[in-house]
């Protein structure tokens, strides 16, 4: 790093547009955190204000790669939602969960461990919230059958889904956003994040064994209820199931190869969704499309435009210069600050707006450091790569810290309340925070060892 580059302030004009955009940005984030108004409404209003007040043009908001909505992220999310919505009625998820409980022979800790691993693996390929919504209802049924407290199971599943989601490009929205902005492909995530996530998951299972293992007991006769369940009865539509599994396999193969094929992940997902709509024989796709989570999608779109506004006026560049002042050109230090700051930030605020802000900040930082580089030469600079991975690990795993850190946590807390066993903020944090810190410590060692000692 050249100290001159960091010192050069470059021209940030702090005029009216700068302050207007900054106010919209801070106001929107404050409202999102306060939860006084729905976050999607806030994001749409903030985005519209950015355009109405002339901070960004409509052209920039809708079509610019740097300042506008990131359609790569939106189409990837929509397409995966469509694939899941078609697959859900086949009964495959019920089948997997019931089968898992039977493999565990109704032993309470084995069920917890197997469900955690299944949740993590499914979550690596599907959205975390979707995974929890698919696994948790069966878990609640199993807990009821075994007369077990649902709380430990719901918490461990939510945490496992956030861990598993970190492993791949498509597992968690922060990764999708990072991949799009940093132009990283599916295999780069597998190669750099999956190994450490496997270690984190093993450590996690050992930890929950210590925390919950002894407390969970079940009367022998209740296990019969589980063993009497026939998972094959779950399969409601074997033909559609076969077609869905083939299309899903093709789609995942497409993700694996997308770098080589020179296709964006969103293109692969869109192809998969289109193919499944075609072969499933669904006459009117209206229902399948209507079930996509439009509120989440519009939240993304709005956020992208708000961030575009503060990128354009230079706020993000100013923030990146401040970060450079703190880190003083120490790349390992930067990676660590990014990882730990992201982890604690994501534990308390939504990691989606957080990563949406961090992406351009890191790119701006790179532009200050290497002003002569551009494109992937800049984005994939060897010194920058560990910082991207630290951002992904911190932002995804950080969500485990509190009940509001990740959407999956919010979902299980809601489910527990409906079951009459509410999980307080404190109770969730008591389990979530130490397990989150454990995982980030493992990631710290991994990043240090892999990128700064072994350099592989």
């Amino acid at each position: 790093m050249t100290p001159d580059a960091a010192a050069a302030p470059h021209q940030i004009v702090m005029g009216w547009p700068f302050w207007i955009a900054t106010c919209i940005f801070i106001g929107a984030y404050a409202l999102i955190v306060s939860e006084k108004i729905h976050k999607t409404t806030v994001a749409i209003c903030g985005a519209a204000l950015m355009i109405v007040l002339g901070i960004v043009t409509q052209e920039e908001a809708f079509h610019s790669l740097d300042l506008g909505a990131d359609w790569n992220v939106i189409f990837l999310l929509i397409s995966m939602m469509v694939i899941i919505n078609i697959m859900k009625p086949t009964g495959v998820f019920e089948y997997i969960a019931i089968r898992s409980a039977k493999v565990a022979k109704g032993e309470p800790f084995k069920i917890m461990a197997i469900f955690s691993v299944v949740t993590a693996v499914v979550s690596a390929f599907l959205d975390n919230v979707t995974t929890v919504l698919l696994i948790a209802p069966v878990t609640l049924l199993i807990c009821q059958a075994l007369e077990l407290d649902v709380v430990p199971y719901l918490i461990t599943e939510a945490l496992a889904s956030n861990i598993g989601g970190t492993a791949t490009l498509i597992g968690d929205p922060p990764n999708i956003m990072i991949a799009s902005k940093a132009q990283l492909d599916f295999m780069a995530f597998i190669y750099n994040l999956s190994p450490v996530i496997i270690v984190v998951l093993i450590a996690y299972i050992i930890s929950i064994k210590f925390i919950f293992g002894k407390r969970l007991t079940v009367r022998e006769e209740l296990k019969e209820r589980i063993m009497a369940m026939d998972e094959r009865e779950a399969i409601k539509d074997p033909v559609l199931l076969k077609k869905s599994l083939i299309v899903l396999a093709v789609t995942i193969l497409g993700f694996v190869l997308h770098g080589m094929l020179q296709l964006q992940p969103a293109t692969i997902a869109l192809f998969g969704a289109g193919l499944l709509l075609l072969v499933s024989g669904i006459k009117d796709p209206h229902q399948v499309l209507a079930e996509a989570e439009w509120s989440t999608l519009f939240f993304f779109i709005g956020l992208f435009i708000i961030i575009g506004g503060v990128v354009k006026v230079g706020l993000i560049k100013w923030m990146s210069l401040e970060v450079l002042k703190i880190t003083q050109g120490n790349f390992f230090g930067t990676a660590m600050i990014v990882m730990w700051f992201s982890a604690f930030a994501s534990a308390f605020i939504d990691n989606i707006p957080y990563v949406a802000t961090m992406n351009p900040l890191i790119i701006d930082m790179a532009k200050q450091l290497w002003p002569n580089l551009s494109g992937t030469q800049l984005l994939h600079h060897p010194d920058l790569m560990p910082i991207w991975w630290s951002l992904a690990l911190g932002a995804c795993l950080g969500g485990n810290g509190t009940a509001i850190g990740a959407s999956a946590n919010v979902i299980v807390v809601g489910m527990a309340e409906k079951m009459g066993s509410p999980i307080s903020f404190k109770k969730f944090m008591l389990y979530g925070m130490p397990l989150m810190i454990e995982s980030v410590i493992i990631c710290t060692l991994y990043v240090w060892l892999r990128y700064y000692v072994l350099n592989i």
Partner: protein
Amino acid sequence: MKVKDLMIPIHDFLRPDVTLKEAVNLLHIARRDAEKQGVKGLPVLDDHYKLIGILSMRDILKAVYPSYMSMMNLGNFTWDGMLESLAKRAGAEKVAAHMSRDLWTVQENDSLMECVDLMIKHDIKRVPVLDQSGKVVGMIYERDVFNTITNAMFDDPPEGEK
């Protein structure tokens, strides 16, 4: 025919803070009309006799049915005795937690078609009738509306025009 001609005046109602067990008891003994006993739903009134909900048999079924079962297809994986043990637990819960709060009401002078409109659009079987001051004075039941329809179908045309 107007609402007031078909409604059954209110004899019994529920309080929000009673348990489902007590509510079920009242459903059994409540008067349906002059001679019959037992109703399938009752209005829930607050201390000022203001209508705040309706508790029907359906709501009690829903109170026993675990919410997670509606999220996936799990009917095949239930066991003998599950319903009964959940019902025991639900008996102690309060009416306020399980009554329907989406209220569709009619006035005494409204037309019967307005009732049918509400019944079909909102999939309800009973509609509370309010007087001018907003107090609940009676209920219109699907069964009685159906009887009116039946009578109209079978009446001779000259009689129907009377």
